[in-house]
């Protein structure tokens, strides 16, 4: 039983040491708290241990306080592999919703400005932002799509839907190098042709929030955030493009893995060496999906700015709708990290874990470089969200990674049995939160009590020092996918 092998290292860190399970190459580490550890799922522990056996893994297999049972990696799992040491790449460590992530947009409005118009604003957002199963965004022809695949959010800006300065505040400037559309299937391209600028469904959302509490005034100021300010949070990913690329490559890698003699403890961890032809092809296709996700969130930002403009009769610039930051939490990225005193280029898999770079990293724009990266943590529907900042400790211990959200504790099927979408919406309205959704059963699945308490999760990260709290955000209105 993996859970009984856990040893407490400090108040916020537990470990399954090497040798506990045959084949472990590194320890499996769990950042958490006494409270959250009581609910830790045995299967999430097993999954983190399985990851610790993969070739080329460095330092630790890591699970965040929001870790729960996923497929392959636990959700909230991080692992870094050295390509020079037969390190692998795996779809099971990135997921099908490649570069699913969160972006935060500021405004110069406060809660009093917005309250009287909140209902019409939420209607405008619901109407303006395509969401739900089968929703369609911008229709692109194949040559336009080819450009988006290579340019990501830059394409959206170049075509007049976004602002040039947005790009400074997107991870990788909204466009990652090494994306190769020729390694993406025709089907993936066909499926993506009408998806750009759509939220999708599941736990994806657009939320209007207010800064409720400031914990770190200096960092908040650097991020352009202050108490009482209205902000917009968007949570979505690479839509059909990412899903299809994941499907295509997991099916291709399964037979290939045997040729490379890689043994995995869970079929979903199907892996190939990063430096193999299959590994390189998947990485270049996955980078296409990274670009698509940034483009998608940039396009949704356009729709959100339009909706605000309509509701307030003012242009988005006058409303101060500046992009605070955009960061992914389902990614596989080549990054430099310290391993035993040496700087190494590693492939960092983050599955349900937000990149959280500490101060000094050259990937950050100058205005954030001294502070650390804004780490955007979306809460569950109707609960708080947080902005944290990356730390040097996080860089040393977790490859600059943090939590991504509250983390589920109740299955979707159970949530649907226990809650009704209509009732939840009424309850949230009583608390002053307006919800616009496309599916009642979808809303029930996202019931706040189906998730761990996001505040516990964020506190655990803060206490562990791998990212620290900057501001807390309270929801005013949500558009659910």
């Amino acid at each position, binding site marked *: 039983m993996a859970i009984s092998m856990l040893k407490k290292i400090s108040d916020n860190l537990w470990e399954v040491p090497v040798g506990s399970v045959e084949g472990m190459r590194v320890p499996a580490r769990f950042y958490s708290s006494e409270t959250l550890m009581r609910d830790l799922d045995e299967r999430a522990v097993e999954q983190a241990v399985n990851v610790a056996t993969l070739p080329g893994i460095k330092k630790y297999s890591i699970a965040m306080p929001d870790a729960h049972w996923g497929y392959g990696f636990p959700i909230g799992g991080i692992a870094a592999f050295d390509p020079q040491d037969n390190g692998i790449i795996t779809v099971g460590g990135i997921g099908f919703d490649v570069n699913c992530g969160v972006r935060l947009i500021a405004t110069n409005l406060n809660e009093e400005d917005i309250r009287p118009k909140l209902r019409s604003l939420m209607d405008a957002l619901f109407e303006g932002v395509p969401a739900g199963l089968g929703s369609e965004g911008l229709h692109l022809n194949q040559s336009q799509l080819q450009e988006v695949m290579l340019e990501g959010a830059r394409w959206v800006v170049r075509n007049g839907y976004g602002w040039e300065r947005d790009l400074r505040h997107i991870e990788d400037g909204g466009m990652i190098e090494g994306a190769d559309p020729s390694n993406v299937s025709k089907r993936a391209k066909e499926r993506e042709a009408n998806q750009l600028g759509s939220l999708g469904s599941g736990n994806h959302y657009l939320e209007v929030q207010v800064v409720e509490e400031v914990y770190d005034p200096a960092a908040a100021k650097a991020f352009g955030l202050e108490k009482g300010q209205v902000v917009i949070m968007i949570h979505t990913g690479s839509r059909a493009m990412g899903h299809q690329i994941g499907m295509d490559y997991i099916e291709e890698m*399964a037979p290939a893995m045997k040729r490379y003699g890689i043994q995995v403890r*869970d079929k979903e961890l199907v892996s190939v060496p990063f430096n193999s032809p299959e590994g390189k092809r998947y990485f270049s296709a996955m980078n296409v999906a990274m670009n698509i996700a940034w483009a998608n969130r940039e396009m949704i930002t356009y729709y959100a700015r339009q909706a605000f403009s309509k509701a307030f009769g003012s242009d988005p610039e006058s409303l101060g709708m500046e992009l605070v930051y955009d960061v992914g939490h389902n990614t596989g990225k080549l990054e430099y990290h310290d391993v035993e005193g040496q700087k190494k280029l590693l492939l960092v898999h983050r599955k349900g874990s937000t990149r959280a770079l500490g101060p000094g990293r050259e990937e950050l724009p100058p205005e954030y470089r001294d502070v650390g990266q804004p780490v955007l943590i979306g809460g569950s529907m109707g609960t708080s969200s947080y902005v944290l900042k990356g730390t040097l400790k996080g860089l040393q211990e977790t490859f600059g990674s943090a939590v991504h959200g509250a983390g589920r504790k109740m299955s*979707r099927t159970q949530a649907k049995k226990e809650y009704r979408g209509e009732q939840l919406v009424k309850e949230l309205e009583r608390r002053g939160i307006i919800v616009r959704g496309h599916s009642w059963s979808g809303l029930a699945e996202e019931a706040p009590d189906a998730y761990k308490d996001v505040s516990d999760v964020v506190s655990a990260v803060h206490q562990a020092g791998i990212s620290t709290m900057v501001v807390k955000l309270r929801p005013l209105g949500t558009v659910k996918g």
Partner: protein
Amino acid sequence: MRFEVYSHTADAGVRGVGASPSEAFEGAALATFSLMADLESVEPRLKFHVELSAESLELLLVKWLNELISLSSLNSVIFSRFDVSVEEASGGFHLSAEAWGDKISPNMELREEVKAATFADLKVEKEKEKEKEQWVAQCIVDV
């Protein structure tokens, strides 16, 4: 043949049970699309043909569900009826199937988008159920 959606913390499990692998595959497909819509609200008006091969029944199940999810998204269709034939073939197994469904419309009771079938909890096996041998086809799908 019967189908069911079973519990998984973040996602969902789909399972088909039947007298043959073909029936179990039909059930797994119905379970998958029951996550996406109330299948009673979906008329089987449009027909799609699917041909697939794989080295194992497990990989064939993942390919089958992924092909349906992919066709559904590409054509904005929800499937509600399947006729599947799974047979042994050189180098593994072959699937030939018809899938019927309808264009997504406001008349349908839509639920959640399913992103992909995974290898997690994946099995296609003959199991004994109340003294009766049954084929079970199941996996976790990413919702």
